[in-house]
């Protein structure tokens, strides 16, 4: 089992986790410090002294941008979290997520969560993020009784039991794991944002929030609610990525190794997310742009923590914050898997919703199977995801996540008159951008930065790269003599366009 602590140990071993021992209070400075670390491409930061009981970690699922050559990749921490490796290639991370969508075996049950020490929610020191002036929850997984999740029919009937029956509390089928973002109000009040199907949970229903879950559970809960429903349940996805043990709570099973387990009871009528005074404090998590959400209010019944609990959080709003990374990789994997299982062939070499672009642009490097395929590919992506309204189609010669080359090609390879294509203005509003938040329709656009398949071969301009520009004997001699020639930097400093096709060094 790979729990959060194992993940952090791996980051530590990879010199991708720094510790701040100075007091940074949870009420203001903690989120600011994590935000600055994310903003400046720093390692994840462990905040050892926040005035609360928990150690906070910002950036555990974040990473640096890919707008320069760095020693760490944006997906390195995700690769580490998923057990693929901190040095994993981008496509290995995507492939792991794609494979997990089918689910694994059921998680193994254990008798009780590892978190056994009772605690007071207010003394944990959960960080106030963004404009919140109360403690917030940003990277949580909520366990909700399966019978309470859906179209509300069961809830409306009044026949729903408040809790999962005791003999089913380690049954993965009896529970739904959902991503949750929330805030703490008073001594025991919670406002929670959850995917809309979980928002119909009636008053009195038990719900459990797990913080510091094994990473696989966090990814599983997020993946389950993105896009189409033909995916396994979150516990099964998590187990495929994990494995993950589960432990009983009144709301159903939770990841056993979770750092903090908050048992609560839904305390008010389900509220629409459009009611501002009922929303959780703090900025919405990026996943809330990708799925319809609803707000739940709850009262805390019991809080249990592991010894010296560690709580990861996202400094939401800072560029490169964890939530964007989490959504970027999961949504990229989903779309990558779908477009490569749609036409009977797998044309997409790689696909990414770069965190750097706030998930508002989708890059896809693909074989252009025939004239017009670019249109088909772009519009397929628009139909699969509502996050973005801009697609850039690249040739497969652009290495995975080489944003430098991708954001060169978009300007120089696409004809400004012919290769920037706009739909009619009746497309649904994309959810990641800041405009048309009222839902007004507008245009989608794609940039065709791939060579026109109708062009003669002689029209295709070769790239200027070290590999393509010089004869092999010169390349070999230059590389072999590099140090002798008096240079300092080695292959590790090469930009990605000189790396292998899989993006690895």
């Amino acid at each position: 089992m790979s729990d959060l602590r194992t993940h952090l140990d791996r980051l530590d071993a990879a010199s991708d986790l720094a510790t701040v021992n100075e007091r940074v209070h949870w009420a203001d400075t903690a989120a600011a410090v994590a935000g600055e670390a994310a903003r400046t491409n720093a390692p994840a930061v462990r905040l050892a002294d926040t005035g609360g009981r928990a150690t906070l970690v910002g950036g555990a699922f974040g990473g640096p941008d890919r707008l320069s050559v760095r020693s760490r990749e944006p997906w390195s921490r995700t690769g580490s979290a998923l057990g693929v490796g901190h040095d994993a290639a981008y496509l290995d991370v995507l492939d792991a997520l794609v494979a997990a969508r089918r689910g694994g075996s059921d998680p193994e049950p254990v008798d009780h969560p590892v978190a056994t020490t009772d605690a007071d929610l207010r003394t944990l020191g959960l960080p106030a993020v963004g404009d919140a002036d109360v403690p917030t929850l940003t990277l949580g997984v909520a366990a909700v009784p399966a019978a309470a999740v859906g179209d509300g029919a069961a809830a409306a009937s009044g026949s729903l039991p408040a809790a999962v029956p005791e003999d089913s509390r380690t049954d993965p089928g009896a529970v739904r794991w959902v991503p949750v973002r929330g805030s703490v109000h008073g001594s025991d009040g919670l406002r929670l944002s959850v995917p809309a199907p979980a928002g119909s949970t009636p008053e009195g229903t038990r719900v459990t929030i797990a913080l510091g879950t094994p990473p696989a559970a966090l990814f599983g809960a997020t993946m389950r609610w993105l896009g189409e429903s033909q995916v396994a349940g979150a516990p099964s996805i998590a187990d495929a990525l994990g494995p993950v043990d589960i432990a009983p709570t009144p709301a159903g099973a939770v990841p056993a190794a979770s750092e903090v387990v908050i048992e609560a009871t839904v305390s008010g009528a389900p509220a629409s997310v459009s009611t501002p005074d009922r929303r959780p404090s703090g900025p919405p998590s990026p996943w809330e742009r990708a799925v319809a959400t609803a707000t739940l209010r709850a009262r805390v019944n019991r809080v249990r923590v592991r010894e010296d609990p560690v709580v990861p959080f996202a400094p939401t709003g800072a560029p490169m914050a964890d939530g964007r990374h989490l959504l970027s990789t999961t949504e990229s994997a989903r779309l990558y898997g779908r477009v490569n299982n749609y036409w009977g062939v797998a044309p997409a070499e790689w696909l990414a919703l770069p965190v750097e672009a706030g998930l508002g642009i989708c890059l896809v490097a693909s074989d252009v199977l025939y004239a017009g395929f670019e249109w088909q590919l772009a519009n397929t992506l628009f139909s699969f995801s509502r996050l973005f309204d801009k697609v850039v189609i690249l040739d497969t010669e652009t290495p995975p996540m080489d944003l430098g080359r991708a954001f060169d090609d978009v300007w120089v390879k696409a004809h400004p008159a012919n290769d920037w294509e706009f739909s009619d203005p009746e497309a649904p509003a994309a959810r990641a951008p800041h405009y048309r938040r009222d839902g007004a329709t507008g245009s989608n656009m794609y940039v065709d930065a791939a060579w026109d398949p109708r062009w003669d071969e002689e029209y295709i301009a070769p790239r200027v790269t070290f590999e393509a520009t010089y004869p092999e004997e010169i390349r070999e001699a230059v590389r072999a003599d590099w140090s002798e020639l008096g240079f300092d930097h080695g292959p590790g400093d090469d930009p990605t366009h000189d790396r292998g096709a899989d993006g690895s060094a």
Partner: protein
Amino acid sequence: MTDGGAPNVPADSFRDYLGMIDAAEELNRIGARVSWNLEASAITMLANDRDDRVPVFESVTDCQVPARLVGDPYRGTRGRPWDRPARALGLPPDLSGEEYYRTVMERLRNPVAPVEVDATDAACKAVIRRGADVDLFSFPWPYIHAADGGRYSNLHTMVAPDPDSSWTDWSAHRAMIQDGARASVLLLAGEQTPNLFYYRYERREEPMPVALAVGVEPAAQFTASMWIPTGSDEAAFAGGLKGDPVELVECTTNDLKVPASAELVIEGRIIPGERLDEGPFGDYFGYMHGPRRSMPVLRVDAVTHREDPLIPFCVEGSGVGYSLNTTSTTEVACTGPDATLGLRAAGYDVEKCVPWRFTPRSVYVVSTDVPRPGYLHELANFIFTTWGMLHVDFFVFVDADVDPLSTRDVVEALALHADPDSDFHQFGAETMPKVPLNIYQTPEEKGDVETGTSKSKTAKAYIDATSNGESGVSESAGGDGALRERARSVLDRAGVDRDPGVTSGE
């Protein structure tokens, strides 16, 4: 001469500049024998790609005149493209981007007239070769990319006079060496010197006297890459940039004046009605472009040079994506401040105009307030019809508080604020001129037009990525400035390795 750590006087010569970066341990003097035939450029490209030291090839094989090559001497470092130009101009290399732009613009506002020196005092006249003694191939002009049409001089200042006034233009137009006394010069109509040739000299069937000054002092090199208004004294702008007068000396075979500190000067005439092949060439887009085209011919009358001259060159095309070269660096460090100043002089209160990080010349980012409806359209049209006419296809406008030097902020603004429905303008109309160096037109569309532009037209566009009052989470993220500053201090005290990337604010 300054030391490498604390420069405070500008470089008076190219050699002086190399000494500065040598002292800063940013220069690699390579003693091993290296060929001009692809080898020097291959080493340079790898140094560019790896953000390594600037190579000086002290021993070049197969050249009759002892001479050295310098690969991409002005390439900035990945995170701070302006650092070496700053050093060359006597500025602290650790200036923030904001400070660098402000300082360079201030200097450009204060031109310093050049001084003329006698030929006997001019370093570039140490050796004078004329007539039959001239053999361009006796110098180690590099063969830069394996598919190039020939060997090139591509990092020089071309000096050419207006036949109808006292104005002399400095510009940068590469020259492909054809034989011992001829080169074809890339002249694209729409730019100042090409316009002088095509529409004045050639129409009058007169040769245009020119000088290619190779390895000039940095301020002169930087000025050649800028769009200095017609009629202005380019040497005075170079002096302003430097903060000291530039020394000029009269050519040996014509009355043009060139920077006296040059390593080598090719004097000659561009002949009306004559054309020779030029290209293909690996160009600034990052691609080899073709096909060959016909370009005006420079006939060489004399070559003067220092002893053991240093010949700088640029591995064009290697300054895209994550890598920098001299072209992409001077675009950020020279063209950007110059363009910003030019827009302000034209009455547009822009904050900054900066080339897109991964593409040297095709797209610029302008940070500006939008004071009135139609302002961005007006601004875009102004630029497209002046200095942005032929090379630039796109302008991206961002809010005044978005730093165009921060690629991430620009990418995010483009993704999250530019509405496909209303913020992309002027697409679809093929009405505008384009240089044939591009790769999105077919060879037929490019043609082989007498004046160097493509036969077919293209479209240009501007993208409004300003917020238009839209707000997002990022705007409130991280708290106020004081809190963010405190947070940075905490991280620094904890020894956290921060790397903000290319940004002027840190």
